[in-house]
């Protein structure tokens, strides 16, 4: 079996029913896809398979023999982030970081199939299969919206996506907002 991962071709030695996730992480040491729930429910292992977002934990590697796989490592470089990565960075859309690569790949897929004119609901729908255990969804949705609109900067996206009319929200009286 062969896979092209982030532009590099590899011969695969793992048994054919091994999950794509295990092949990526353990055989090829491509570790941005995370082994979270490993039953399709958390989204942390999401990668692009021939351009489509897929759960690497649910795919036997034999089912994707010959496919082109893109992970977060294949989107940009540390000193030259992709638009999606830059948006997540600019918007502080990562806390512990475990779910981040999955959200980034789902956002990259949305950006690729969209004309850039997306609303908040469409972004939320596209990310609905992904779980952030730090519950940092507000920042993630802002970052994803900015990225799909092609603008990584926080100012423009937050003006469009944050609730209007409230200058300051104090969750607990007396606490810093």
């Amino acid at each position, binding site marked *: 079996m062969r896979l092209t991962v982030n532009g590099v071709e590899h011969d695969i030695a*793992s048994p054919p029913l091994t999950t794509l996730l295990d092949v990526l992480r353990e055989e090829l040491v491509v570790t941005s896809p995370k082994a979270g729930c490993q039953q399709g429910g958390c989204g942390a292992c999401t990668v692009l398979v021939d351009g489509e977002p897929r759960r690497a934990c649910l795919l*036997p590697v*034999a*089912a994707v023999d010959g496919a082109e796989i893109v992970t977060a490592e294949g989107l940009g470089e540390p000193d030259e982030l992709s638009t999606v990565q830059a948006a997540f960075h600019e918007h502080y859309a990562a806390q512990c970081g475990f779910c981040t690569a999955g959200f980034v790949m789902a956002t990259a897929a949305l950006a690729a199939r969209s004309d850039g004119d997306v609303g908040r609901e469409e972004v939320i729908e*596209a990310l609905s299969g992904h779980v952030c255990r730090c519950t940092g969804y507000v920042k993630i949705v802002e970052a994803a919206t900015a990225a799909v609109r092609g603008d990584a900067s926080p100012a423009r996206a937050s003006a469009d996506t944050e609730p209007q009319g409230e200058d300051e929200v104090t969750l607990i009286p007396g606490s810093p907002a």
Partner: protein
Amino acid sequence: MAGTVDATEVIVAASLEEAVEAFGDGDGVTVVAGGTIVMPEIRHGRLRPERALLLGRAGLAGVQRADGRTTIGAATTLADLEDAVEPLGTCARWVADLEIRGQATLGGNLCAPPGEEGPRGDLQAALLALDAQVRSTAAGGERTEPVEDFLASGPQGRLVLDVSFEEPEAAATASVRRPHAHAYTILRVCVARAGGGLRVAVVGAGPVAVRSRAVEQSGDANRVLDDITPHDDALASAWYRSKVLPVLVRRALDDLEAR
């Protein structure tokens, strides 16, 4: 990591003929279509297949429409059914998230064993309401039967090829809201009117979807409990389901009436 799968013989069928031959009488064969149900079972060692038959490249995917009849290949993904004839389209859109829908298949949904946490097979009620026919094969030969019979006898020993149905005059569906993207259907009612007859089906109230003939014959939503005795599971109690089910039937029938 992969110790449980080393011993499995894996067949990646490249054609329908190869798939049928590899399936044989189905004995000892685990069919992997989208993989969304069986892969976690295999990965965590709960299922150790002697042989695994991968269907993704067997040419079993695709939707065809001719003379008012829709035929859907067993390996068609739920993403490709989101715009299907109602109520199938709505049921497909409600399954999980777009990534799972891009992998999960119609055949897998039809053959899904009930999960520990709750029922599966979110599309089954729609297929019952549409009076779908299931074409399947095995060593003994091909067979086409109503989806109701297929669900009652179970998928053991059968390789599903396709599902087909006539477009109904009108259809509607009502469901309990899903609490999050990955919850299986707690309860859903699908209704359709065709040829002067009414068909009413429920998914989420038992191991597989079933029809309610009492409602079909009387038009009385409350009589759904004559046919269906809801159960307790991790998603909802029998008490809750028995209170909500007649309400969903009434809503679906009202919606059908308005069409």
